[in-house]
């Protein structure tokens, strides 16, 4: 597919040694994990020491990278190296609960840490809360980055982002969760005695009282009690969830960071991509460009869907011998229709965001589940668009 946009030169990006973090984001299911892994592999094979942080990769892909256990630490991927023995690839899968536990253990004395780990509210928070995965992905990125500079173990970290409906969740969820946990609300409701509720107005105070009451009734008093003891336990230990989230957020604004936004050629995915691109601009986060993934091939030959269908009809009337060619033309017409629709959707994006570099990756006939598949995706990502075709 030929897009009306500047070319996203992936190889230039991964060769640029000043880039130390590449973040792959996009709507759910568009190919974030695949792209992150493919880029990481390609960068390693071009001589960089890379660590890729994947989130919920498909089982076979994980196995192909040697990740059979979820142990929350980067593992060297065997058999990957660049020219003249340079370059290496480490890969890991995020374990959000473990990451959260480690944050707790690293910030509180053992006794207090244990109290937090045992708290039912903490257990829910660390395993099933909306936003925890994003928060922990950021946290892990921060840790990897710190390890990278301390041990000079790798010079490029490629980050996959959690499977969320909205790409913006990666940026917003940690902050949202952080403010929630640090928030006034959780304090007032759990410890009104500390006077946190002072100065909020009579009606509000009344409503709070009433609400706490109702909440206790419908949730059971244990829930608020658990939240209360959790808040009390963390209060004295780490310096605020929000601050933590903010610190990693800053890392993302660094000029050594680069975002790649991935989209499928579908309305929803491209809309998400557009939101994300605009947001990066607002927050001055560096965007490398758009990867339009799983594009239906088409446009290689000058034969439109209409022409192909008309010819197929003609051939079908001619009888048995022409069936094969008729079927091939129908097949082509179908592909062409999908291609045209996708091109149209992509053009709406490029027209609205003319400065954004882009590249396309065709839909392979099969899933990507081994290193060879990742290499192929890498090649396709880096492939330069053909020069304008000679006019006939």
């Amino acid at each position, binding site marked *: 597919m030929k897009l009306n946009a500047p070319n996203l030169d992936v190889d230039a990006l991964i060769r640029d040694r000043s880039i130390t973090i590449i973040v792959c984001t996009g709507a759910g299911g568009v190919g974030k994990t695949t792209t992150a892994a493919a880029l990481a592999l390609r960068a390693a094979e071009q001589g960089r020491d890379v660590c890729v942080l994947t989130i919920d990769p498909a089982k076979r892909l994980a196995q192909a990278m040697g990740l059979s256990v979820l142990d929350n630490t980067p593992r060297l991927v065997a058999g990957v190296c660049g020219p003249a023995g340079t370059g290496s690839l480490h890969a890991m899968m995020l374990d959000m609960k473990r990451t959260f536990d480690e944050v707790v253990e690293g910030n509180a004395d053992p006794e207090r840490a244990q109290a937090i780990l045992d708290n039912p509210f903490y257990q829910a928070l660390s395993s099933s809360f909306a936003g925890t995965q994003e928060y922990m992905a950021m946290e892990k990125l921060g840790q990897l980055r710190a390890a990278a500079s301390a041990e000079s173990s790798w010079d490029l970290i490629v980050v996959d982002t959690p499977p969320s409906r909205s790409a913006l969740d990666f940026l917003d969820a940690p902050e949202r969760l952080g403010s929630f946990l640090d928030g006034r609300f959780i304090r007032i409701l759990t410890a009104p005695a500390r006077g946190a509720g002072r100065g909020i107005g009579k009606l509000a105070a009344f409503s709070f009282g009433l609400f706490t009451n*109702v909440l206790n*009734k419908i949730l059971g008093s244990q829930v608020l009690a658990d939240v209360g003891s959790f808040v009390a336990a963390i209060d004295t230990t780490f310096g605020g969830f929000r601050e933590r989230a903010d610190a990693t957020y800053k890392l993302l604004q660094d000029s050594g960071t680069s975002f790649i936004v991935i989209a499928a050629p579908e309305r929803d995915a491209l809309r998400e991509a557009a939101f994300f691109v605009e947001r990066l601009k607002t927050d001055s986060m560096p965007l490398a460009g758009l990867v339009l993934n799983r594009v239906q091939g088409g446009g290689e030959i000058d034969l439109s869907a209409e022409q192909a269908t008309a010819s197929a009809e003609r051939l079908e009337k001619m009888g048995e*011998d022409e069936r094969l*060619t008729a079927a091939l033309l129908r097949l082509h017409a179908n592909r062409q229709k999908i291609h045209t629709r996708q091109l149209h959707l992509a053009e709406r994006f490029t027209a609205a965001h003319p400065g954004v570099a882009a590249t396309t990756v065709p839909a392979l006939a099969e899933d990507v589940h081994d290193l060879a598949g990742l290499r192929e995706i890498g090649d396709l990502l880096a492939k330069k668009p053909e020069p304008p075709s000679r006019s006939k």
Partner: protein
Amino acid sequence: MTDVWWPGVALHVVSGKGGTGKTTVAAALALALAHQGKRTLLMEVEDRQGIAQLFDTAPLPYEERKIAVAPGGGEVWALALNAQEALLDYLDTFYNLRRAGSVLRRMGAIDFATTIAPGLRDVLLTGKACEVVRRIDKRAPNAYSAIVLDAPPTGRISRFLNVNSEVSGLAKVGPIRNHADLVMSVISSPRTAVHLVTLLEEMPVQETIDGVSDLRSANLPVGGIFVNMTRPPMLTSEQLREARSGTLPALGIERSLAEAGLTFDNQVVTALMHEANDHAVRVDLEAREATRITELGLPTFMLPLISEGIDLGGLYQLANLLRECGVR
């Protein structure tokens, strides 16, 4: 196939991996079930206005609205549920708190409550769906003949539906407990069927297989598998074999193209053969994954990829296909 599937089912829950077509299939199902003057309700729970987008209408309020007519005079209604409204509703019904509720909402308290207890959120949403189902039993004038729920994805569906265990950490007595019991009495009964949407690709199929076993171990009633966006073979098996091995008769194709009056260069024949090869690989993949789906032994419905994309026309097309397979 002339039998009607799921004759006693009132609540159809549609789940599946993200992006496989849950919303599309749920809508097509609601249309198919609304044939011949029946009235169905299509509900969504994720605050995304997916139904409004699909039917190309203004965002739906927290209120039942007619959104489409089915062929033969039936009607599809829609309701976009949201946990906050449902909680306010609930507070009002049981505690007479609507007015204080709006103050609390402005302060973010409603958000807070549904955040600290995600189970509460789910019980409120499923509760609303069950309330609509129970209208049928009460023979209420506003009862629907069937309800289709565009539900959360496979990864969360068992938990979403299994409200009993969801609220087990919450109050042991009181209205929310009763509420949960009532919900379970509908959801784990033969009045409910949980359908899964999948594509014939490795990950969605795996998720479907895992999903079915999760649902079964939670004692939730599994309905059918809707295999979406399939690409039925367009070549005979002999042709596919040749396409795979690159032995399609290039000269014959070239001659036929000329016959059809197409002016072309060599590239066209090569490209067509290449496309045929892609198609064959895809057909093989789909056949492989389809076997895994068949092994589940569940009613399975095939819905083709609509190359023009899904608009209202495409939706009716899918609904008709479902009806032809006995979904009515």
